[in-house]
C-alpha cells in the first residue's frame, strides 16, 4: 500500500539521505515562490505601479500574470509530487496514538494542511489559466495568500505533533533505518533511545527498558 515507505525502509541509508532532503528542498522552494510571488503580485506590485497610467498598470499586470503563470504551474506540480512523497513516507506516523498531555494525532493537522494547500492551488490555477483573469482577481489573491499562510502554520503544527510523538514513542521504522551515525554509533532521541518508550491503552508513557 505505502510503496515509498516500504522502499525507504529497505533502501540503503544513503538513498534516504539524498531523496528526502531533495524532496523537502523542492517542497520549500516551490512554497516560497508561490507564497512570496503571490504576496508580491498582490501587495507590492500595485503600490509600485500606482503612479502609472491606468492602461500601463493593466499592461504590467497582464504581462506579470503571464509570466507568473509558469511559476504557479511548476510550483504546483512540485508541491503535489513532493507532498505525495512526504504523505506516503509519514503515513504511519500520522496514525500513532498521541501521548498524554500533548496534541491529538498528527493526522488532522496534516489533512487540514493538505486541504488548504489544495484549495490555494485551485485558486492559483484558476487565476492564471485562460486569457483573462476571473472577476475580482486581487480579492481572490488575498484569500489565497491567507490560505497559504495558514497552510504553513498547519504544516508546522503537524510536524511538531509528529516530533512530540517521536520523542515519546521513538521513531517509526524507516527512521530506525537512518539512525546509523558514520561512527557506527546508534542515533537517539533527546528523551531516550529509539523505541525506548511506548504508550498504554490510557495514553500513559511506558518505558520499555
Amino acid at each position, binding site marked *: 500500500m505505502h510503496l515509498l515507505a516500504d522502499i525507504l525502509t529497505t533502501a540503503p541509508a544513503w538513498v534516504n*539521505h539524498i531523496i*528526502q*532532503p531533495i524532496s*523537502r*528542498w523542492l517542497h*520549500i*522552494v516551490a*512554497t*516560497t*515562490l*508561490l*507564497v*512570496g*510571488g*503571490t*504576496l*508580491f*503580485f498582490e501587495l*507590492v*506590485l500595485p*503600490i*509600485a*505601479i*500606482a*503612479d*502609472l497610467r491606468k492602461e*500601463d498598470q493593466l499592461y*504590467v499586470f497582464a*504581462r*506579470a500574470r*503571464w*509570466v*507568473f503563470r509558469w*511559476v504557479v504551474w511548476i510550483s504546483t506540480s512540485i508541491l503535489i509530487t513532493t507532498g505525495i512523497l512526504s504523505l506516503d513516507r509519514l503515513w504511519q506516523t500520522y496514525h500513532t496514538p498521541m501521548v498524554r*498531555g*500533548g*496534541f491529538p494525532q498528527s493526522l488532522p493537522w496534516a489533512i487540514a494542511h493538505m486541504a488548504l494547500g489544495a484549495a490555494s492551488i485551485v485558486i492559483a490555477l484558476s487565476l492564471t489559466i485562460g486569457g483573462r483573469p476571473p472577476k475580482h482577481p486581487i480579492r481572490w489573491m488575498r484569500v489565497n495568500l491567507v490560505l497559504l*499562510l495558514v497552510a*504553513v*502554520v498547519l504544516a*508546522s*503544527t503537524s*510536524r*511538531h505533533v509528529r*516530533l*512530540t510523538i*517521536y*520523542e515519546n514513542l521513538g*521513531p517509526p521504522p524507516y*527512521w530506525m533505518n*537512518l*539512525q546509523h*551515525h558514520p561512527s557506527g554509533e546508534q*542515533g*537517539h*532521541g*533527546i*528523551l531516550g533511545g529509539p523505541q525506548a518508550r511506548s504508550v498504554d491503552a490510557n495514553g500513559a508513557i511506558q518505558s520499555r527498558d
Partner: protein
Amino acid sequence: MDIEPILKILARWFHIVPACLALGGLFFIRIVFPIAARQWPADQREMAYLSLRRVFKMVVHTCVLLLLISGTYNTIVNWKIYSLHRGLMHGLWGMHLILALAVFAIGFWLLAGPRPPASHKKWAAISLGLIFILIALAGTLRYARDAYGHAG
C-alpha cells in the same frame, strides 16, 4: 497551559514566511518583472523598477528582523541536538548562518540609497542562487535533526 509548543510553531512560521517573502519577492523583482516590463520604454521601466525596489526594501528589512529573531530562538531550542553530532550539524548550521548573513549583507547593499548599484542584476542573481543553497542546507539540517534526535 504549556506555551512552549505554541512558541516553537510560531517561531517556525515566522522563519518560513519571511523566507518565502524574501525569496518570492527577489524572484519576482529579478525574473518576473523584467520579463513583464520588457516592451516598455526604458524610462518607464526604470521608474516602475525603482518603485518596486522602494516597497521591496521595506519588506526585506522586516523579513531580516523576523528571520534573525526566529532563527535565534530555533537555534537555542535545537542546540542540544546540534551538539549530539557536532561535525555534521554544526557544519550545516554554520554554513546556513554564514550564507544567510552574506545574503542579508548583499541585500542591504543592493537596496541602500535611492538607486541600485550598477551591477545589481548580477548580485541579485547571485543572492537568488545563495538562497536556494541556503534552503537546501536548512532542509538537510532539519533532516539530520529528525534522524539523530527529535526536537522542535
